[in-house]
């Protein structure tokens, strides 16, 4: 069970960082919606799980948060990337690409190899 969460958290963290990199500061709800949309609504995210992940990224210094006002005048907490976060996106994305590339070789049909 622990392992599964770790994998999930790792990928979730990358999704969060990547989304913040492309879209700039976002609040929690916005982030959750955006991740769902980007995944083509395949990922059914339990929004609640997003917050511990955000807290962790903040504790690790990859993102920071501040209170602001949304486009339709609601108070909301906004998250944005720090410098360390920007470096981390690149690093994690590269690692992830490498992992998927390796896995892809295993998963392609045997005849093509």
């Amino acid at each position, binding site marked *: 069970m622990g392992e599964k969460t770790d994998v999930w958290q790792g990928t979730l963290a990358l999704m969060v960082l990547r989304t913040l990199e492309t879209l700039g500061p976002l609040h929690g709800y916005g982030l959750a919606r955006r991740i769902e949309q980007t995944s083509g609504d395949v990922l059914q995210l339990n*929004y609640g799980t997003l*917050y511990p992940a955000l807290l962790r990224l903040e504790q*690790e210094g990859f993102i920071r948060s501040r209170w602001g006002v949304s486009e339709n005048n609601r108070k909301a907490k906004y998250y944005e990337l720090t410098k360390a976060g920007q470096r981390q996106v690149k690093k994690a994305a590269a690692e992830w690409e490498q992992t998927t590339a390796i896995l892809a070789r295993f998963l392609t049909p045997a005849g093509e190899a």
Partner: protein
Amino acid sequence: MRKLRAFCFRLLGLFRGRRADDDFAAELESHITLHTDAGIRAGLTAEEARRQALIHLGGVEQTQQAHRERRSLPWLDSLLQDTQYGLRTLRRSPGFTITAVSTLAVGIGACTAIFSLVNAVLIRSLPYGEPQRLVYLFTPNPRLPVPVEVMTPSYADFFDIKRQGHSFANMSAFEQATFHLAMDGSVERVSAARVDENFFETLESTPEIGRSIGADDNQPGHSRVAVISHALWHSIFADRADVLEHSLTLEGVRYRIVGVMPPEFAYPSSSDLPYGNASVKATHIWIPLALTPKQKAEREPGSDEVIARLRPGISVSKAQSEMSTIMVRLDQLHSGDFGRGWGAFVENFMDNAVGPVRPLMWLLLGAVLLVLLIACGNAASLLLARAANRMRELGMRVALGAGRGRIIRQLLTESLLIGVAAGVLGIGLAYVFLHILLDLDPGDIPRLNEASLDTRVLLFTVSVSLLTSVLAGILPALTVARVSLNGFLTSGGGGAVAGTHSRSQNALIVVEAALVVVLLAGAGLFIRSYLNVESVTTGFSPSTVTMNVGLDERYGTPQQQGAFFRNLIGKLGALPGIDAVGAVNYLPLSHSESLGFFWVDGFANQKDQMAEGRLVTPQYFRAMNIPLVAGRFFAEDDASSPARPTIINQQFAKEYFADRNPIGGRISTDEKDHSHWSTVIGVVTDVRHLTLEEAPQPQMYSPGYELGAAYIAVRTMRPPSAVASEIQRTLKSIDPNLARGDVHTMGDLMSEATARRRFQTTLLGVFAAIALLLALVGLYGLMTYSVSCRTRELGIRMALGAQRTDVTLLVLRKAGFLLGSGLVLGLACTWIATRTIKAFLFGVDAHDPATILSVCVLLAVCGFLAALIPARRAASIDPMQALRTE
């Protein structure tokens, strides 16, 4: 790195729970609002939109919980909770807390103090590089009736061993010396050593200022240099930086100072050398040995000492076998008075320096650990009683869903809190104990006076505190955890667990009593030994005042020495209130000895028979109050007559004049001419010489004033302190350039000789007393507790007709049974334990029945008194009230 940063944030998170909770609640609220807004925009009703938002979120509570756990460290959080809860419950029952904490603190404090001694004496490293590679070399001769470590290699042997031996990386010969050190106006006697060029190198010790003594310094004509101790630098030169531009005047000769040793270096001291000068507490001056070619060729053993450093990887036994082989060859070269038969003995330096006190240190640590165990038992017993009283609360918590592990953790946290408090208090107590201990310092245990609470000791205390609290807490915690919820619910309270609890508590009391018996028996045997030593017949009067006088090089001839002592003794005898004044070269209990060969006329003389020989002035026996048994004392004429007579002691008479009158018998001490007789004119009583515990040896006395260094003995009715200053004034009036000697009464020397015994006896006695007290407190507590648990039962018995005496007896019988079992167990342990302390005893058997009996009686009486109060309380129970409880 990132992980560490996150950890710090979470650690901080522990302390801002409330604010962070509010902040996150606001964030969630905003999340739901935003989501609801989106739902409404998509055409849902407000309620439906909010419902959808909540479903998507997955529950506000769960999210908050997950967030909270991520925010701080959950395990630390619950530990803090346990601690807070524990502190609260401990504060609620101050009586219990104070008893448990103080009991353990006494145990931990005593343990810490003793460990700091062990640390200073046995564990802390010596100020020499790798001291385990240092060895002493001896050349014992089995033909001489002296201990193995008395005979040291002669210089010729030393240089041959040094040349031929391959086991030694380095080797040094040195001699102890005492110098008159002239300092502006006054003269002091200072302990010194003449050392060769390898002395400091062998010890691997280097000066803090300047240099040590090298090969050039040992060349004739270059030897007027000195290395001084840190203490001397401080006392004479006031730590001045230009000390190397100064010099010292020793025996009228100037020595240029070339180095200052660091503060911890004072080798050799009395505890470093097996048969060195015992009055040397620390050496302060080192000068070159500077042997002449004639000295270097001397085959006969002198007064030097040889210390060597083994090559890495060479064992003592290997060095021993090599030195033995070399000595077989060298023995052939010996042709002096002592003849041949010289062997080899290599002894480890550490074994020699601390070996003799090691058993004592371990014994003290063992005894104090027993005290700690008893304290631990008491704390465990208290915790058990308390856990029984708290069964209702604990059962309720189990019923409400607290896990067993959680309950154990809670109870252990409480006992840890007690242990930590006891540890802190214990360190304070240890500080006090240590000061008392250092006042008791017998002065003959190496480096005991350097004991302090250093880091290692504190680390020891912390581990002991943790260990004791776990040890004391684990039994109650497990007992509670074993109790089933079902049992608790059906019994309606504490009843179900009382059985298991009291069994554990009974066992604890039995074990405690057994430990106390062991300690009491040990202390009893020590006390009896001490009393035996105190009551030995010393042979001299304790009130005699003595002072050592050392003549310097200005008194070169026997005539000069004789004139000086006749003058001094005459002047002292003329002082008011002085009964008799004498002098002797080897005073009893002054750690010096002289053995000589002798031949008795008309006796089957053995080869190499030896006796203690003394040169005394005629009034010596009267001054020391040594009684005459037969014949007469020396007269003044005897000291100047060409055929000087001899006085012997009873032991001598018994061994060598067994069936004849010793008076008129003849003895020779002349090694060349055995028929150079001296007539025995008197027999005096035996005198204990080296220690009070060793039986007197044959002793012979010759009359004379020709003494180089002597002890003056003065018999007077006046207070010693008043006489002391007059003696010193008289000495100064005769020769102001002689150093003031120390003035002691013979009683002081006896007290010094028994100091070690007093130290160990006091300590063991105090430990036994503390142990007894703790065990009695434990017994009292248990009996009180068991009476309070049995109030109802006792009430029913009384209602059914039991008399008050029956109830009292019921309680006393139980206490008696526990103590009795403890006593039996304890006696069995004592039987084994006292055998290990045989070496510490004097004049008393390790299984001395009188001691064992007194221990039994003491424990029985004290136990009876401790149980009487709860027993009387039981007897005063009002049956009606007792039946109404619960």
